[in-house]
């Protein structure tokens, strides 16, 4: 069986750094941070997501695609040409490393819509999701692992320092960096299984195992999201897209959905309207509740959000200094990149930590 069809529960390390005013900074900082938590991974997966890295192409959708064999390149590119104008395409720059065992072919494409793209009035974003799902489900050995604007995901099977060096992460400059160090409880040689997982400009890194995966996945099918990658992180990404982009909820409210308060906590809420709101939220979004241990960092082009499950079975700390916001699995990963940070705070169970970029005028 193809490795990509195995869902792998895993323990992991997470780190995210956001520049408060949207100023770009090199990937070196995040590499140092994630590499300080090597203990949390086992060399079977690592990755980085960065926002603001393609300023010259910032208005185009950027696809990062991995191919397991040459043949898939042609098929996929023909399909892309059919759907888009390809503004620019190139292999993703990498550095040869002897320590990495298997390396897929890695390409990036900057895409613009053709005039006639709109099918029955669906939005640009829905169209992108449709295309990404089509490629990932139907074109063998071809996998889109990043599909946002002015952002990119870089990931693979290896230790974080290896993956960083392989993709030359230190050469990029972004205003949000998110990274992941993976400890899957099963060996897997498929690069697509590494984190971050992304769709549109969402990127998600995740530490945990979702016991409610079976129902979260089936709930999303009700809304046209088909999970095909058999990684539980995928459902988190789609849930964020559905709840934020489509249903219009802010991240506090999404926190109340994905890690809903317990019924006894809802009953204690004094404000009657708010109590009723929380109750209705839970009745309607019950199948979205993410059950089981998790801590996640989710980013899009404006936000970096950290969150844990409602009984906090995985660690998450956050903090800030003059210039940056930090979210991480461990305090050590923050302190090593910020000597001046005064204190770090342990995230409250189920309560999202929300950081937003304040653009420099």
């Amino acid at each position, binding site marked *: 069986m193809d490795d990509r069809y195995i869902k*792998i*529960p895993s323990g992991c390390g997470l780190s995210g750094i956001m520049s408060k005013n949207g100023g770009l900074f090199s990937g070196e900082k995040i590499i140092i941070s994630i590499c300080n938590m090597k203990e949390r991974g086992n060399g079977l997966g690592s990755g980085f997501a960065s926002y603001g890295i393609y300023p010259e192409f910032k208005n185009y959708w950027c696809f990062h695609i991995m191919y397991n064999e040459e043949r898939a390149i042609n098929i996929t590119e023909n399909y892309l040409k059919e759907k888009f104008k390809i503004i620019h395409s190139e292999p993703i720059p990498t550095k040869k490393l002897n320590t990495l065992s298997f390396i897929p072919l890695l390409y990036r494409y900057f895409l613009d819509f053709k005039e006639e793209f709109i099918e029955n009035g669906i939005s640009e974003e829905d169209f992108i999701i449709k295309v990404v799902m089509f490629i990932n489900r139907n074109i063998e050995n071809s996998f889109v692992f990043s599909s946002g604007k002015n952002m990119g995901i870089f990931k693979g099977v290896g230790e974080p320092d290896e993956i960083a060096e392989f993709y030359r992460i230190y050469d990029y400059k972004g205003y949000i960096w998110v990274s992941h160090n993976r400890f899957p*409880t099963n060996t897997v040689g498929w690069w697509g299984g590494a984190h971050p997982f992304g769709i549109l400009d969402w990127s998600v890194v995740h530490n945990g195992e979702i016991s409610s995966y079976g*129902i979260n996945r089936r709930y999303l099918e*009700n809304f046209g999201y088909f999970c095909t990658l058999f990684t539980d992180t995928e459902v988190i990404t789609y849930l964020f897209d559905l709840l934020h982009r489509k249903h219009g909820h802010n991240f506090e409210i999404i926190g109340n959905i994905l890690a809903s308060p317990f019924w006894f906590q809802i009953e204690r809420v004094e404000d009657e*309207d708010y109590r009723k709101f929380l109750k209705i939220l839970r009745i309607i979004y019950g199948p979205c509740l993410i059950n089981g241990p998790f801590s996640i960092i989710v980013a899009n082009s404006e936000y970096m959000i950290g969150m844990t499950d409602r009984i906090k079975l995985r660690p998450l700390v956050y903090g800030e200094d003059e210039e940056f916001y930090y979210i991480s699995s461990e305090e050590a990963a923050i302190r090593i990149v910020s000597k001046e940070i005064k204190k770090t705070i342990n995230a409250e169970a189920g309560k999202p930590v929300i950081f937003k970029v304040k653009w420099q005028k």
Partner: protein
Amino acid sequence: MAKVKRISEFFVDRDESKCIRCQACVRMCSNDVHIYDEEGDLIRSDDLKCVGCHFCEEICPTGAITIRRNQSEIKENYHWKKEYVYDIIKQAETGGVILTGMGCDKLYKNYFDHILLNASQVTNPSIDPLREPMELKTFIGKKPDKVEYNIENGKISLKTEIPPQLELETPIIFTAMSFGSISLNALKSLAIAAKNFGTYWNTGEGGLPEELYPYADRCIVQVASGRFGVNIDYLERAAAIEIKIGQGAKPGIGGHLPGEKVSEEISRTRMIPESTDALSPAPHHDIYSIEDLKQLIFALKEATQYKKPVGVKIAAVHNVAPIASGIVRAGADYVAIDGIRGGTGAAPKVIRDNVGIPIEIAIAVVDTRLREEGIRNKASIIAAGGFRKSSDVIKAIALGADAVYIGTAALISLGCHLCQKCYTGKCNWGIATQDPYLTKRLNPEIGAKRAYNLLRAWSLEIKEMLGGMGINSIESLRGNREQLRGIDLSDMELKYLGIKHVGEAW
């Protein structure tokens, strides 16, 4: 040919050295099995009348009585079971349809016994329900696609109006059993237990007896083909209304409460003359197709001003998934599905044992179908039919049911020993009878305590199983078939159940 002498199913084994001739058994047995012989100061037994309900065994103060199966054997073989031979003998004598009570007892595959649950190890901590919150709260009713609201100055004002919901503290409801098929004391026991526990009970099609008005707010009232006891007061008192189309024990056929059971009280509750037969037609004669059902659903909603859920109960038949989908599209707030093991007070044996499909498969195909159509949130699914233990309940929920109905299990908690003779009206336990001499044996307060205990015990067990899976809320298990694995099932069975085989990882 000489008349065939019937052979009794049971015999009474009386230990003479223990029997003190108190004659409690003689006085109590509604089937007149025990006879006191004054001359010899002996108690004799007419074994042919014994139904195997074990009431005498339970009340005998010295433990002198043991009810055993009759060991007299005919030359039974795999094809010709004893039961079939004696059924033919009975039919040769009477020329009638063979009646029976309770659910199908034949050897069809029991899928619950072929499904195994998951638990956490290492990668995911299991949760101890004695130390951590573990939530079973369940809502039955239509759920909108999303929540809409305005936020002004941090204050949220809801735009979404949520349709009426039933709020359950545990996903278990007492199923429809009518006043008539069971006694008022039995019904009252369940009503009190449901109210105290925070779940619901169901009137069945026999109307709502006045004595149970205090429990009406936790009651689902049925509107069945006979329309017994249906009036605006009945609809308004209830928590929810259920249109009964069919029942798992007898899909496609109606019901018949014989006139001798229609006492003054039943006559008043059902709004029919005393001592007349209460006939429920096979179909509703105003529902010959799905659009007729839609009219009835909305007539009931109009009558009750859209204040309570209106559900529809059907038997699980071959076409159950499309039928359920039609029912949801017709506006029902929940669909109750009753599988082939579903119980009854009286049904023709040939129907009970041969018509319908198992509830496990029915839940799976209905849940899948509604999801494929994107309408799963438009209605809840209540599964019924033969739930024997808490693991059956949790498996049904993981397959996709929102809640389950229990009937037989609830009656067993009140004393029932499954003798399957409910249709005779002679229930020694005071459950399936209207004879005041028998019904007073069931004290509704004690009955309520026992039925409550059953709900409590099963709920605790469900919490233990959930915690083991690392899940602390039932809604994260509902429809979560990843937590199930099939054992000893064919590819086809796994496909319809929508589960993987044991050994297969995520």
